[in-house]
C-alpha cells in the first residue's frame, strides 16, 4: 500500500469509521461539557488534538525504554506535561477560550481518548504512523465536538460563532444547558449507529 493511501486510511478511520466520540464512545465528559458553543468545541478539540499528537510522538519514541509494568504511570506523566503546556499557552494567548473552558483544560489529562491511543497505538508503532494516528483521532474528536457545538449553539442561543441567526425568535435555552448536551449527543450517536447498521446491512446483502 502506498504511503498516500495509508494516510488517507488513517483519516478515514479517525474521523469517520472509528470516530473516537461517535463510534468508540470515549471522552464523554469534555464532549458534553465544552460544547455549549461552536467556538468552545473547536478550542477544546484543537487543544486535545495538540496533546494527542505530542503524547503519541513522545510515547512512540520512548516505547522501547518505558518498562512494561509502569507504562500507564509513565504515559500519564507525559500526557500531564503536555496538558500543562497547553494550559499555559491558552492562558497566555487565548484568554477568552481559557476562561470559557476553565477546569476542563487540566482535565484533558484524564481524557480517555488520549490514554487509549497511547496504549493501543503509540506504544506499538513507529513515530510517523503514531503522529498520523494522533492527528486523525484528534481531528475526529474535534469534528464530533464541532457538530455538537454547532447544533447546541444554533438551537440553544440562536447564534453561530456569535452571529445572531433568527432575529427576534427566542432560542430553546435548554439546549445550551446540561440536559441539552445529553439529548443532542444521544441523538447524534443514534444517528451514527443507524448509519453503521445500514452500511453493514448493505454489505451483507452484497455478499449474498
Amino acid at each position, binding site marked *: 500500500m502506498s504511503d498516500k493511501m495509508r494516510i488517507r486510511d488513517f483519516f478515514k478511520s479517525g474521523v469517520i469509521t472509528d470516530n473516537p466520540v461517535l463510534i468508540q*464512545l470515549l471522552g*464523554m*465528559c469534555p464532549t*458534553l*461539557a465544552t460544547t455549549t458553543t461552536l467556538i468552545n468545541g473547536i478550542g477544546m478539540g484543537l487543544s486535545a488534538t495538540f496533546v494527542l499528537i505530542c503524547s503519541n510522538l513522545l510515547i512512540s519514541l520512548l516505547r522501547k525504554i518505558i518498562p512494561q509494568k509502569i507504562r*500507564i*504511570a509513565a504515559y*500519564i*506523566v507525559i500526557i*500531564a*506535561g503536555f*496538558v*500543562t503546556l497547553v*494550559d*499555559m499557552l491558552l492562558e497566555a494567548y487565548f484568554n477568552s477560550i481559557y476562561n470559557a473552558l476553565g*477546569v476542563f483544560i*487540566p*482535565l484533558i*489529562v*484524564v*481524557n*480517555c481518548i488520549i*490514554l487509549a491511543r497511547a496504549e493501543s497505538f503509540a506504544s506499538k508503532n513507529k513515530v510517523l504512523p503514531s503522529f498520523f494516528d494522533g492527528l486523525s483521532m484528534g481531528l475526529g474528536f474535534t469534528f464530533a465536538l464541532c457538530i455538537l457545538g454547532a447544533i447546541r449553539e444554533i438551537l440553544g442561543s440562536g447564534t453561530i460563532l456569535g452571529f445572531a441567526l433568527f432575529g427576534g425568535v427566542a432560542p430553546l435555552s*435548554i439546549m445550551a*444547558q*446540561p*440536559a*441539552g*448536551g*445529553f*439529548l443532542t*449527543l*444521544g*441523538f447524534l*450517536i*443514534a*444517528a451514527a*449507529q*443507524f448509519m453503521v*447498521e445500514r452500511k453493514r446491512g448493505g454489505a451483507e446483502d452484497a455478499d449474498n
Partner: protein
Amino acid sequence: MQTINLGTIIAFAINAILIENIVLTQFMGCCPFFGVSKKSDTALGMGMAVTFIMALSSVVTHWIYQLILVPFDLEYLQTIAFILVIAALVQLVEMALRKLVPALYNALGIYLPLITTNCAVLGICLTNVQDGYNFLVSFLNSVFTAIGFTLAIWIFSLVRMRMDEVCEVPKPFQGFPIALITAAVLSFGFLGFNGLSL
C-alpha cells in the same frame, strides 16, 4: 465560607449534592456514570469507591499543594502532581480491597483502576485549590460532591434496570444513545433544583 456552622454545612451539602450535581450539571465523571450503571448494586459500590477515593485524595492533594507546591513556587505542576497522587491512591485502595473485601473488588472489576481517569476526582481536587477552600471546606466539598455522584449514578441505574425490563427501544437507540437520553431527562429534573435559593 470560612466560618463553619451547621447551617452553612447543610446549605453547602444541598448545593453540592443537588443544585450543582457533579454529573448531571457539570458533566464530570460521565465514564463510570454510563459504564457502571447497568445494575444498581454495582452502581452503589462504584459510588462508594469514588466517595472514598475523592475524600482521601482531596485531603492529600490539599496538603501537597499547601506544603510542597506553594512554598517552592511550583503551582503550575499541580495537574501532574495531583494525577500522580490520585493514581497512587487508587492503586493502594485496589490492593486493600482485594485483600479485605474480595466481593466488592470483583464487583467493581475493571472500573476500579478507571477511577484514576474519572475526571470528577481530579476536577474536584483542582477546583478546591482554585477556589482557595481551606482544609475543612475542601474535605466537605469533595465528600458532598461524591455523595451527589453516588445519588445520580444510583437513581440512573434504577431507571436503566426498569427500562431494560419494560421498554422496547428502537434499534439505533439501543444501548448508549437511550442511556444518554435518559440522563438528559434526569438532568431536566435536577435543573429544577436551580430554583432553590439558599
